[in-house]
């Protein structure tokens, strides 16, 4: 973690809203990536992201060590996620959610439905592979492909130095490629 991050955390803890906003900018994609990995849905991930930051903002003064801001934030995100899934299961138990059926019925301007389905399935598989990766490789790759962050952004989000990120990326990608299903690789190759 860079010194500026620590300083920002310290300032935010004293009630500096601008500092916290800067922290948000620096970590939001990380948190998003983390949440997306678990949820598999970007809209939900974004909702949870906002909830996470709200919670973090409210309880920031309880963070004793400013240097562990990112793990702390990720832990909050994790709890938020668990809480949300618990609530979702309760809702499911209580009543079937009002499905977005009318919207789903609208003709999509994007790809055809079968392509969409195919892609969705592919995404799910890739995500599962990503989830199976160790934490340190998983996050950079997620940031890279799912949040579309460039190299610098990744480094900023993770609070990592250039060299370590290179290694992480290399080994993560290699691991990913090894674990990807063969048909996917074939699709890519073909």
């Amino acid at each position, binding site marked *: 973690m860079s010194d500026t991050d620590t300083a920002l955390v310290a300032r935010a803890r004293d*009630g500096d*809203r601008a500092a*916290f*906003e800067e922290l*948000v*900018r620096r970590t*939001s*994609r990380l948190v*998003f990536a983390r949440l*997306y990995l678990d949820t598999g849905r*970007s809209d939900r991930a*974004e909702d949870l*992201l*906002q909830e996470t*930051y*709200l*919670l*973090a*903002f*409210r*309880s*920031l*003064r*309880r*963070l*004793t060590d400013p240097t*562990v801001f990112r*793990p*702390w934030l990720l*832990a*909050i995100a994790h*709890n938020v996620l668990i*809480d949300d899934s618990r609530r979702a299961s309760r809702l499911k138990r209580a009543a079937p959610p009002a499905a977005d059926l009318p919207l789903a019925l609208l003709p999509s301007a*994007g790809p055809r439905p079968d392509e969409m389905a195919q*892609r969705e399935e592919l*995404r799910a598989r*890739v995500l599962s592979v990503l989830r199976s990766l160790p*934490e340190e490789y998983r996050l950079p790759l997620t940031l*890279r*492909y*799912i*949040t*579309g962050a*460039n*190299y*610098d952004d*990744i*480094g900023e989000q993770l609070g990592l*130095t*250039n*060299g370590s990120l*290179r*290694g992480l*990326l*290399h080994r993560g*990608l290699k691991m*990913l*490629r090894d674990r990807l299903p063969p048909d996917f*690789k074939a699709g*890519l190759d073909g």
Partner: protein
Amino acid sequence: MRYTEGTMSDHTWAEEHVAAYLAGGLDAPEAERLEAHARDCPACAAALAAARRLDGGLSVLFAGVQPGPELQDRAVARLRTADPPSPVFGRWAVRVAASVAAVLMLGAFGALAGAVMQRGGLPLPGHVRLKREGGERPRISGQSPPDYGPSALNEFLGTLIYDASDSMPAKDLTNEDPGLQSNLEAALPQIERVEQQSVDAAVRQDNIGLPNAPDTDTFALAIPGLNTSDLTSTHKLRVSGTTPPGRINTNSIDTNADGSVWALRGHGSMSNMRGYGTTSNAVLPSDSYATHLGSGVMERPAVSPHLNLFSPVFKPGDHKPVFAAIAQPDPKKEPAKEPDKAPPPAAKPAADGVPAPAPEPEPERRVILRSGDIEFEVPSFDTAHATVTKIIGNIKGAFVSTVNSEKLPNGKVKGSVTVRVPAASLDGLVAELRKDLGATGELKGVRLAAQDVTKQYFDLESRLRAARTMEQRLLQIIKEGKGEIKLLLEAEKELGVRRTTIEEFEGELRFYANRAALSTLTISITEKEIRAAAGFTENERVQAGVEVEDVDAAYQQLRKAIEDAKGRVTKSEVKQLSAGQFNATVNFELAPDAGGPMRDRLRQLGRVARLEIDRVTQAEGGTLPSDAKTRRGDTVFLVQLYNLANVTPRETATLQVAVTDVSAAYQALRDAVAKTAGRVLNAQLNEQDRTNVTAQFDFEVRRADEPAIRAALDAAGEVVSRQVARAPEGENVTDAKVLYKATLLSAARLKPREVTVLGIEVSDVDQTAAAFAKYAADAKGRQADTQFTREPSGKVTAKLSFEVPLAAAATLVKQFKDAGTVRVSQSVRDPQASEGKYATARIDVTLTNQVGIVPADDGLWPQVRRGLTYSVSVLLTSVTWVVFGLCVVLPWAVIAWVVYRTVRRRPATVVVPTTPPPA
């Protein structure tokens, strides 16, 4: 960190940096280096291409889900709208505050409910409200909130009836519209409604007395506008009685047929009936003619003899009065004569504030025939006849039509005078007759009758008119002389018939008119019967029974007394019966004045046990006048003298006397009886053995000697039972003697008053038994029984029985108990035993020594008992805890759980770690 150049080959470096290169993580020289290597090395080129494909494929694959560059902005924007972190209250603070608020609310609610309950406002099951029952009456007026309890309902109804009854008399049901029949009908529902109200209230509220009306007669419902007569301008519905909202019996409404008076009187007896008037026979003024033809003219003469019985006969407008003699009563006089029935027309409407709207009534047309009988009993017929003649002479138009008289066998004269008087004067005549003849004679009966012949009269009139018209027609025909002779002859013949008919009608009408104008009064006069004077004779008969000591002496004295009083002895005998019994009977007659002294003389002879006096009065001659004289005849005496030797005493006393020495007491009692000259009937002394001595002693003594006998009895011993029987009073028993049946028994044989059973454990049985015997002897008791048992085990048992005076028993028992360990102690009192100076107590003592094989508190059974006791106590304690938990802990646990669940459901339940989890 450029660490790679020197340490690794280009190939390795390139392989490792493909990913960074693709991500744009290499600066320009590094990118140059990698590209250069890839151009030379086919493996690296292939790897780069593959990596690029993968990279591109993944990027494309996730292109749709990438959040875009605005993600941060959105997150920041969302944050800006969020609340700043609460510096003071943490989440726990909020929870604690919520809990405190909940508890406070619960407490406040409980306190409120308790307060409400204590004031009786919240009826819980089983909590009966009786506080306000019979208390102050709640006002049910507008502002007080209604109470829905049953008692409140009663009270509410009570108020209702108060309101109803209060408003009833004042209720103005007057219909201001002087309309026709519909007015009455319109007014009736109001009557009904008011009544219904009070009825409902009265049914449920019997215990609330209806307030008395200030004036029992004030409840009147006046409905003007229906007057068909000038006699009354108001129809009254009057109810009298003690309760203003008295019920009017529907059937009792008497709509008078003539429509003139429509009055109803509910008297006290019928004030509880209910109902309301109907107007089925209501008469319309415009229809009066028809009404008069079709209705009677009666005025209920029986009810009101002072009513003017001669009712007016009016003709319709186109008729002139037929007979001048038919008087039209003065309408102003009429109400004055009968104020009760028909008040002045102006009075009531004025009272009601509504002017009488009476339409001009059609004149009345009535033909009434009145007649009457009156009967007197007078001393002299001739005088009475003269009086009648004189009275008739003073009445204008009246005359005596017939006089009959007849001499009866007993010399009395009986007769009748028939007079004809103008109808208007009939009542005056009757009143005068009653005054004049009633002064000397006696009014025996009056009967006044009226007969309504209006219908016949006017029928006749109409037929007369028709006949006259026919007569005119026939005359016309004859006068014109047209047509055939035969027809004319027939007309003549017909005319003759008609004229006969006309004259018949006229005659009949004249008869009616005559009868209507002059009423007939028949005065029956009878002379009183004269009765002869007669007399009474009064005889006195005295029957007496006298108890004397010496019958013969008393007999002689009585004979002498009779002789002194110049009496006449009719029977006299002296008898000697068995067992010294003497009887004497003397019957004699005395002058009435000597009766009293002779009775006193009898009392001097002895005790007059029986005295009956009859006084018989007999009449002599014919019917007895009230002032007949009484003559006193001779007084007859029937006297019996007897002595008391063989007469059973009335009172018998059966005694049981406890004495210490039966023989001595028996002797003493015999001496006492002999001293008072009593008569001994039975005496026996029964001495079977030393402890069982009884004596029976029956004797008669005079009442005067009774105290001496009682003193002797008290000296001998104590009376433990006494039964006194008294035979009914009669000739065969006497009160001068008392029979005593005394049984003497030994005091030692009396049943003990108290039996005490003691079981005492002592160390040395023999020694203790000796000590107990000494105690008993000191207390003047005796040892009745002693029994020692010695067992081989060394156990010694002694059964001792003591009989001691009751007074000493308590002390003795205490002494016994102090001697050792008391195992058994039981005390029974016998309620049948007497508690006198000879009362004893029995003490049964069982003495044992302390020898036991097994200690009392050891062994199997005590252990089982102990274990059971512990278990039960533990069980009971746990039950207490369970109940405590159910009643106290459980509710709070439920509340706490509910609060917890509520707080849990809040969205912000994410646990915020203070430190990150280990990576």
